[in-house]
């Protein structure tokens, strides 16, 4: 808790003093040191300032200042101690041995360091975070992998590190959501130490953010990441000298292998304890003209005496002169804002007149000048440089003629491998599911629970779990493309096409990610600066066929197009892409027709993804899939079973039972009797299914879907697929096979299934129409929810549901009707 939260008469022990510069120094000099007791004597009438007693002296602090001191209150101490005694605590950081004093606890808590990871996109920040915290956050070789802050805990040398992995950013301006997010985190959370992760292969650009962090005056350690690549290139970098120059410790790291990470956190401890010899605050020299302007605004800020203690006046002055809208809003809320802003305007006019460029550019130039100067003294690139592997590979994969065939070839390989390689493990899982079903069927007593287990749960969930290998193979390919850097090239070669769609090249990555799962893909669209492109990318993303639709394709292509499975799947995915292009163009024309900002996309060097990284990614997906099995798919299977099982004991059912009983008691021979009973049982089942609740629902919606060639069972499975697309297969499994739980039996059954007129229910044409409908219609609930969250409006969620359902109907209708016409003409 913070000192400001203690009530009058309460006592606390100081854990740490946050803040910076003169404020922090003054507070510490007053005696606010870790482990010291502080009493709240009284609050002033308006609760500000507050009168404290520390080390026998009485001091008064403003509430805002007291907020910067972390304490442990006696009440909090007693609560934690009693929890420990009762053995109920689940917070390992604050677990204390019995009889530990409040002072000892404060010192222990003081050894918890809040660390924020800040760096450019694709600098290896997330890999470093994963290595340190043991987390399994996915790392992609392109920008925007971390779209939210991720937290992890890590222990070293008796200290606990609470690490936050912030989104990648190039600067701390207030343009993109990431930049604002980081600024807000630094302002509100006051991390004790910031680790600025720098890509050693691109020092100049990465150090730009460092300059802004130096301006911000926060305690920092630089992780010179991917240092091995710098060494491999033969470059010479005297990072120790640079560290001395900028007053920030620099530690070379290779986050992929974990090299240097222990040393990095040792330096973090030293910086936190203010024992690092390198640590000092410097001012970046912006040149006489700008410096004069900064000084004038700083004076104006000082005169108000009301600026934030966590942000330096120099930083505020710089940001004001840079016309940072967020800082300006903050200043406007202060007393004397008019005077400050007038001074700012005067300084801006002067700088712009003298330098003949706008202030923002002047600052950018000065920072790059500072970096250039620093690197000239410390960095010597290898002059004899051979063509790098990246350049050679790029000659082919980004070639204007070869690029597209290579891309299409990779895509085809991906789908072919998903289909072919997946067949083997699929067979093993099928056998296991079949064995479990058989075991329950043979050993459990008759009753509705047995029916639920065999037909509902094992039939439903088992029908979907067999597709896990296919999904994993697909994810392995996507993960490989992301991590190797090929995905960024694909975005590069697709840029022109994306522009024709009214999108950015950057939109390509969320769209390809959509092949895995639409939800993270929609979240990844956050990295697109232009709102128009971002919205269009989100709206067309559900047309990118996610892996949840794969089970439906595998089932139906396996049953109706066994020799051309890979090709049919490729066509389905291509149709999704084509429709996405079409809809994007329409949305661009009718909904988002404003001009876009220019496209900028990095081409990171190729890196061979480690097997571990791909395996971690696949394991994460397996967990997600299994969780889905135990959640939404299990529940949907149970619901479908309930709706199909009830109502029981109907008049028609009783009539069938009576007929069966009569035949069993008759004198006909045994063979005829068995055949007649089996036929009656089949008729009874069909009648029961038709009269069940699900049958009633299916018949109610069938008129809408029958022009597409779908019977009521297909209609019901489509309805259930709204929860999650995998449920389509489990519903088909329950409705068509009744008691069977393996995919092979389902494939056989849907080929045999006949309508009441004796025509087959599923033909290759119906299967194609059905797969196209599944590809396009209603994105799952999670996707709709993601769109609502990201767009900030339910309207867009509803819009996506509406347009996808309508488009699915039109496409399936045209496919089925035109297909039938062609078949009639051929015959």
């Amino acid at each position, binding site marked *: 808790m913070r000192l400001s939260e203690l009530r009058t008469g309460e006592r606390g022990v100081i854990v740490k003093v946050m803040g910076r510069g003169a404020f922090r120094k003054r507070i510490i000099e007053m005696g606010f040191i870790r482990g010291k007791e502080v009493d709240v004597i009284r609050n002033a009438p308006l609760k500000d300032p507050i009168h404290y007693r520390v080390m026998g002296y009485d001091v008064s602090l403003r509430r805002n200042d007291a907020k910067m001191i972390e304490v442990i209150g006696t009440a909090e101490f007693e609560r934690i101690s009693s929890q420990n005694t009762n053995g109920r605590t689940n917070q390992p950081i604050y677990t204390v041995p019995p009889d530990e004093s409040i002072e000892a606890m404060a010192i222990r808590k003081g050894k918890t360091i809040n660390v924020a990871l800040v760096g450019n996109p694709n600098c290896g920040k997330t890999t470093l975070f994963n290595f340190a915290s043991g987390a399994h956050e996915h790392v992609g070789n392109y920008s925007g992998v971390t779209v939210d802050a991720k937290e992890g805990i890590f222990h070293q040398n008796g200290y606990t590190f609470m690490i936050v992995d912030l989104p990648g950013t190039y600067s701390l301006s207030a343009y993109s959501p990431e930049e604002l997010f980081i600024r*807000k985190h630094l302002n509100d959370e006051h991390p004790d130490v910031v680790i600025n992760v720098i890509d050693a292969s691109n020092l100049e650009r990465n150090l730009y953010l460092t300059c802004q962090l130096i301006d911000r005056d926060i305690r920092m350690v630089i992780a010179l990441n991917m240092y091995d690549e710098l060494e491999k290139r033969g470059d010479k970098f005297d990072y120790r000298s640079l560290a001395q120059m900028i007053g920030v410790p620099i530690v070379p790291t290779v986050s992929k292998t974990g090299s240097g990470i222990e040393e990095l956190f040792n330096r973090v401890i030293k910086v936190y304890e203010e024992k690092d010899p390198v640590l000092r605050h410097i001012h970046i020299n912006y040149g006489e003209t700008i410096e004069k302007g900064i000084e004038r605004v700083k004076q104006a800020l000082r005169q108000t005496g009301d600026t934030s203690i966590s942000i330096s006046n120099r930083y505020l002055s710089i940001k004001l002169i840079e016309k940072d809208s967020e800082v300006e809003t903050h200043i406007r809320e202060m007393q004397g804002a008019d005077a400050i802003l007038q001074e700012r305007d005067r300084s801006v006019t002067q700088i712009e007149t003298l330098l003949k460029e706008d202030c923002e550019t002047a600052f950018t130039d000065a920072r790059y000048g500072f970096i250039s100067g620093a690197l000239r003294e410390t960095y010597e690139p290898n002059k004899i440089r051979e063509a790098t592997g990246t350049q050679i590979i790029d000659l082919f994969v980004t070639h204007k003629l070869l690029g597209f065939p290579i891309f299409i070839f990779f895509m085809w390989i991906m789908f072919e491998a998903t289909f072919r390689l997946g067949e083997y493990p699929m067979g093993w899982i099928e056998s296991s599911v079949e064995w479990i079903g058989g075991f329950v069927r043979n050993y459990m007593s008759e009753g509705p629970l047995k029916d639920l287990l065999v037909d509902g749960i094992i039939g439903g969930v088992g029908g979907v779990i067999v597709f896990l290998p296919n999904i994993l193979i697909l994810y392995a390919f996507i993960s490989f493309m992301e991590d190797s850097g090929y995905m960024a090239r694909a975005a590069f070669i697709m840029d022109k096409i994306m522009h024709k769609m009214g999108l950015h090249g950057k939109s390509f990555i969320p769209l390809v990610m959509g092949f895995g799962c639409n939800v993270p893909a929609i979240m990844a669209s956050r990295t697109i600066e232009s*709102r128009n492109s971002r919205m269009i990318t989100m709206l067309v993303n559900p047309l990118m066929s996610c892996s949840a639709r794969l089970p439906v394709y595998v089932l139906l292509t396996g049953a109706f197009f066994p020799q051309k499975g890979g090709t049919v799947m490729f066509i389905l995915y291509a149709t999704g892409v084509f429709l996405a292009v079409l809809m994007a163009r329409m949305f661009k024309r009718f909904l988002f027709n404003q001009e876009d900002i220019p496209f900028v996309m990095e081409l990171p060097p190729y890196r061979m993804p480690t097997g571990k990284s791909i395996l971690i990614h696949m394991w994460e997906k397996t967990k997600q899939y299994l969780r889905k099995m135990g959640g939404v798919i299990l529940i949907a299977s149970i619901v479908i079973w309930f709706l199909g099982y009830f109502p029981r004991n109907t008049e028609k059912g009783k009539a069938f039972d009576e007929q069966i009983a009569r035949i069993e008691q008759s004198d006909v021979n045994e063979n005829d009797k068995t055949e007649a009973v089996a036929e009656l049982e089949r008729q009874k089942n069909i009648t029961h299914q038709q009269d069940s609740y699900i049958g009633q629902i299916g018949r109610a919606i069938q008129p809408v879907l029958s022009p597409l060639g779908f019977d009521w069972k297909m209609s019901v499975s489509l309805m259930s697929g709204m929860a999650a697309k995998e449920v389509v297969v489990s519903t088909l499994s329950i409705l068509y096979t009744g008691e069977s739980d393996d995919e092979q039996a389902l494939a056989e059954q849907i080929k045999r299934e006949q309508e009441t007129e004796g025509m087959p229910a599923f033909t290759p044409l119906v299967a194609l129409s059905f797969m196209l409908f599944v590809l396009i219609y209603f994105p799952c609930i999670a996707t709709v929810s993601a769109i609502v969250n990201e767009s900030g409006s339910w309207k867009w969620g509803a819009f996506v549901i509406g347009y996808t359902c309508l488009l699915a109907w039109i496409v399936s209708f045209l496919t089925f009707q035109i297909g039938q016409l062609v078949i009639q003409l051929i015959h």
Partner: protein
Amino acid sequence: MWQEIIIVLIALYVVFYIGKKIYKNVTHHKTGNRPCCGCSKCTRKTG
């Protein structure tokens, strides 16, 4: 008979689960999950 009782319990659990999911979805949207933490100047809101 015991099978019927378990079936009823499962049905109740399913109803509870679906209700909870719907409630979470609705309230999740209200609290927001924006990358800018509800920052008033966020380009995602104003853009």
